[in-house]
């Protein structure tokens, strides 16, 4: 925010470099001298965790691609070869597979933190929308990657998801044939999915750079939701935020390692260790856990096209959140009603996730319909009205006052 005026290159080389490509000044102003609010809590460390996880996924993914064969007859076997024959292949694959789940755990915490503290509000709308785009790209990448082992869930997951596009009247059938490169999901589909699965993480990395750029222009939000007013309200990024982020990355790695070493298949499906068979659909098709709430929304609606539109709409509506929430106060700390609705919304999302894993019959369908209606009502009825009717608590005068009390 304060520019890179404080950076003084020390070595002769960096002085030489700074006049030609001021990358040292950029790093210094973004990750060293950058002022961060002094009251950031641990929920603010998930951006760093997510950057770390993107790095983990790219590195493990690039090396897995050295041993993987994107062909319908060979893909399943090549994954088994990775597991049994490739040196440390089991470790790299389990890190990559559980890493995807860890990535989504972190992104969901990151998104709910943004919702709780109103981080999407003026002047951070573009920052938020870039985040929604990253999330969409993550979902696409995760889906494409899950197809690659070419087990039963891979094949039928790919079939169900690509068939979403057949719901569009007129263009549906040719569109799906074009996506498949054949008359059904097959080798051409697998090959292009592999190509795109390799591409998208780098697109994500590009949008992450825009996301961080927008963050550093608008400045970080903080638990009070009010902007820093003086130097007393901020501390430099290094060492304060770097050490805090680093500590949390280490803690997160403990969870990550626990899954990778002790529960590597807990979040997957046993059916995916059966080779893909186009003639038999598994009895119970379920997507990966991180898609379950959206899967529940899809199945809650008895019309195919409307179900697909509701599924896309439930993610797309996030992009409009900065304008749907009409309250001037950002943080839920000072919004007693919003705080309750936030936790209710959180519970609804968990509930939809639980329903997404259940068979689509009887009471589960009824519950999924109720929760789907509530999911959308939260955005298009509750949030706009809360901003008008809610009586918010008084905001502190500054961040330092909220931390130190009025003696500050």
């Amino acid at each position, binding site marked *: 925010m304060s520019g890179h005026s404080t950076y003084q290159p020390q070595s002769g080389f960096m002085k030489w470099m700074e006049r030609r490509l001021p990358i040292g000044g950029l790093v210094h102003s973004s990750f060293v001298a950058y002022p961060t609010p002094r009251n950031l809590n641990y929920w603010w460390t998930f951006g760093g965790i997510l950057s770390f996880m993107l790095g983990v996924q790219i590195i493990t993914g690039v090396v897995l691609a050295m041993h993987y064969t994107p062909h319908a007859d060979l893909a399943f076997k090549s994954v088994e070869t990775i597991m049994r024959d490739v040196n440390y292949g089991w470790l790299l694959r389990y890190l990559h597979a559980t890493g995807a789940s860890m990535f989504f755990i972190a992104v969901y915490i990151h998104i709910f933190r943004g919702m709780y503290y109103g981080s999407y509000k003026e002047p951070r709308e573009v920052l938020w929308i870039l985040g929604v785009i990253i999330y969409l790209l993550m979902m696409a990448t995760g889906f494409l990657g899950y197809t690659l082992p070419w087990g039963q869930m891979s094949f039928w997951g790919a079939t*169900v998801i690509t*068939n979403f596009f057949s719901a569009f009247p007129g263009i549906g059938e040719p569109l799906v044939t074009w996506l498949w*490169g*054949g008359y059904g999901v097959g080798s051409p589909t697998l090959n292009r999915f592999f190509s795109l699965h390799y591409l998208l993480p780098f697109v994500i990395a590009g949008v992450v750079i825009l996301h961080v750029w927008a963050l550093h222009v608008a400045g970080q939000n903080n638990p009070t939701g009010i902007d820093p007013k003086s130097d007393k309200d901020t501390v430099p990024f290094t060492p304060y935020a770097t050490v805090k982020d680093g500590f949390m990355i280490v803690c997160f790695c403990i969870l990550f390692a626990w899954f990778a070493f002790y529960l590597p298949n807990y979040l997957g499906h046993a059916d995916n260790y059966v080779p893909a068979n186009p003639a038999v*659909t598994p*009895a119970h098709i379920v997507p990966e856990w991180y898609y379950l709430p959206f899967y529940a929304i899809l199945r809650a609606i008895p019309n195919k096209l409307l179900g697909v539109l509701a599924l896309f709409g439930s993610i797309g509506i996030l992009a409009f959140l900065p304008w749907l929430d009409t309250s001037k106060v950002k943080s839920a700390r000072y919004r007693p009603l919003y705080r309750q609705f936030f936790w209710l919304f959180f519970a609804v999302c968990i509930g939809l996730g639980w329903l997404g894993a259940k068979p689509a019959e009887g009471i589960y369908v009824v519950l999924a319909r109720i929760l789907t209606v509530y999911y959308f009502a939260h955005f298009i009825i509750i949030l706009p009205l809360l901003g008008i009717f809610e009586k918010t608590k008084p905001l502190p005068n500054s961040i330092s006052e909220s931390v130190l009390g009025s003696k500050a």
Partner: protein
Amino acid sequence: MTTVSSAEHTRRDFLYIATGAIGAVGAAAVVVPLIAQMNPDASTIAAGAPIEVDLAPVAEGQIIKVFWRSKPIFISHRSKKEIEAAQKVDLGSLPDPQPDSARVKPGHDQWLVVVGICTHLGCIPLAHQGQYEGWFCPCHGSVYDTSGRIRQGPAPANLPLPPYAFVSDTKIRIG
């Protein structure tokens, strides 16, 4: 005084517009192969040539599954009871109304040939299951009757009919 010339169309304006137009056509032309390469290639289309199926070994009440264009095709040798059940349905009660006679070839009432892909999201329905003794899709619970018509569940349409013809009384050509 100085702005007068900019209001007139000059040869230079024409060159700018013509250059831009050619550039746009060129860019559009480049997109064509990039999009078209994703459609089924020549070998995939060739592999989708018509197939002949001998019906003689299919017993009454049996449903067989053959593959054509990577789609499973269900061939059902329907019993008298199944044909009657399919014919006497009140068309008004169907989500996708179609008489049974429009779903089989004339004079071959006992043979129902349908594409075995649920019209909801592409799963393969299980034969001889569900309330109407036709097919039941395990993915999202769509129920089809003995004519392959959707009766219950989220699927929007009946199981589609592949293009096929009877070559003889016991042989069909699909495609």
